[in-house]
């Protein structure tokens, strides 16, 4: 299903409004001596007039506009690890990044470069060398692995958000089409299928099922956080794993047909359910991201190698006695 702009949604709302007005006239045929068949007290005509605004209120920019960022993040994940986080196509029209990693396939990863350095210093012996390998070189390796986990989580969060918007747009359009169809059939003899599959309900979970499996396979956020207490690390991974699972929203709904009032009330109820489902899932994604951000702030050494203060102060002093005392022995 293509993405529908605000203009498209507003037009749809206008079509539904027109269909509803005609349905009102069929449901309450104007009788002799009356103008509106006495419908004023029975139908919320003002609400019907605002169907264009109602449908337009679900409008967002096309999430396809964020695809380039998703592609870029996946490429950067590859640049560090030479592994592609997720490749498509994946079922349910899940947003996946392009697998065009450009020249990064031919460039060394940090791990490879660190191994070059280890090879370079193989003839250097002593405590200073051991400390250098353990705290610096191995530190680059560990932090780069954790960086990949974080980049993949950032990309996955974006993919979940894109899918939420896409499925919100799809569901609202489907509800609108069904509602128009239902109004068209008011007072008629034929019935219709007014069951609606609400894809927005599982939009975020569907994406995380794919991305989360990749992140877990790469050592997982728990492993990547290393020395962080099991509770903190577990809460971060749980924050992502629980996205979409706690929702009580139904994945399908049936639009009530029959009278204009029934359709109006049912349509609004389903639209409200879709909006709530979108909002709740987005809040879960936000909470998971915020928890990871806080974890990165609190445990910066797991994601960024630090250097001894003496390195920072080396500057013009040319003082290597502290770090490499054996040079001067």
């Amino acid at each position, binding site marked *: 299903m293509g993405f529908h702009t605000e203009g498209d949604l507003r037009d749809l709302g206008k079509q539904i409004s027109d269909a509803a007005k005609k349905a009102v006239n069929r449901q309450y045929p104007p009788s002799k001596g009356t103008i509106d068949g006495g419908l004023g007290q029975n139908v919320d005509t003002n609400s019907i007039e605002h169907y264009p605004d109602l449908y*337009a*209120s*679900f*409008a*967002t*920019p096309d999430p396809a*506009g*964020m695809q*380039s*960022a998703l592609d*870029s*993040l996946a490429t*950067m994940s590859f*640049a*560090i690890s030479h592994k592609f986080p997720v490749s498509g196509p994946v079922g349910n029209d899940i947003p996946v990044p392009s697998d065009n990693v450009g020249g990064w396939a031919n460039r*060394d*990863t*940090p791990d490879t*470069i660190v191994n*070059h*350095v280890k090879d*370079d*210093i193989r*003839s*250097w012996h002593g405590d200073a060398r051991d400390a250098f390998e353990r705290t*610096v070189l191995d530190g680059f390796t560990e932090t780069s692995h954790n*960086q990949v986990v*974080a*980049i993949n989580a*950032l990309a996955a969060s*974006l993919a979940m*958000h894109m899918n939420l918007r896409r499925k*919100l747009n799809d569901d609202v359009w489907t509800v609108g089409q069904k509602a128009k169809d239902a109004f068209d059939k008011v007072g008629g003899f034929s019935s219709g299928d007014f069951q609606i599959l609400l894809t927005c309900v599982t939009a975020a979970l569907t994406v995380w099922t794919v991305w989360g499996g990749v992140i877990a396979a790469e050592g997982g956020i728990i492993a990547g956080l290393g020395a962080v207490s099991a509770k903190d690390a577990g809460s971060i991974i749980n924050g992502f794993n629980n996205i979409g699972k706690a929702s009580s929203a139904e994945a399908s709904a049936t639009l009530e047909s029959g009278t204009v009032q029934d359709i109006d009330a049912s349509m609004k109820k389903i*639209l409200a359910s879709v*909006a*709530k489902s*979108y*909002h709740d899932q*987005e*809040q879960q*994604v*936000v909470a998971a*991201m*915020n928890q*990871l*951000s806080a974890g*990165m702030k609190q445990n*910066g050494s797991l*994601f*960024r*190698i*630090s*250097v001894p203060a003496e*390195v*920072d102060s*080396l500057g013009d002093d*040319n003082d*290597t006695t502290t*770090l490499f005392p054996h*040079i001067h022995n």
Partner: protein
Amino acid sequence: MSFQVDLDNLDTAARLDLPNLAKVYATVSNEVANAGEIAQNAASDPPVCPDGAAFAKGWMELRVQIMNALTGCADNATKIGGLLAHTVDVYAATDAQILAHMNSLNEKLQSQVQG
């Protein structure tokens, strides 16, 4: 293995590998920064459920944390490369001094022998 060969390897680490490592981190950090181009799109909540652009804010913050980590690694790889390069230079200078001293001694010995 001569000491000169060891210095060459250390020099490779200092002036080639570690700067290359820094460049990888810096480039990746820049690309993560560029992903922020989605800010306006991400921040445009549907009016039916305005969230104060909560997703965009949270995503940008996580992106900043990642950028900080990558940039920090780039900076520190550069610093460590600089430290090693200085170490190499110190060793080489000492080595050169010793070599000059040895050459001087050798010349004196030669002259004594010939004398």
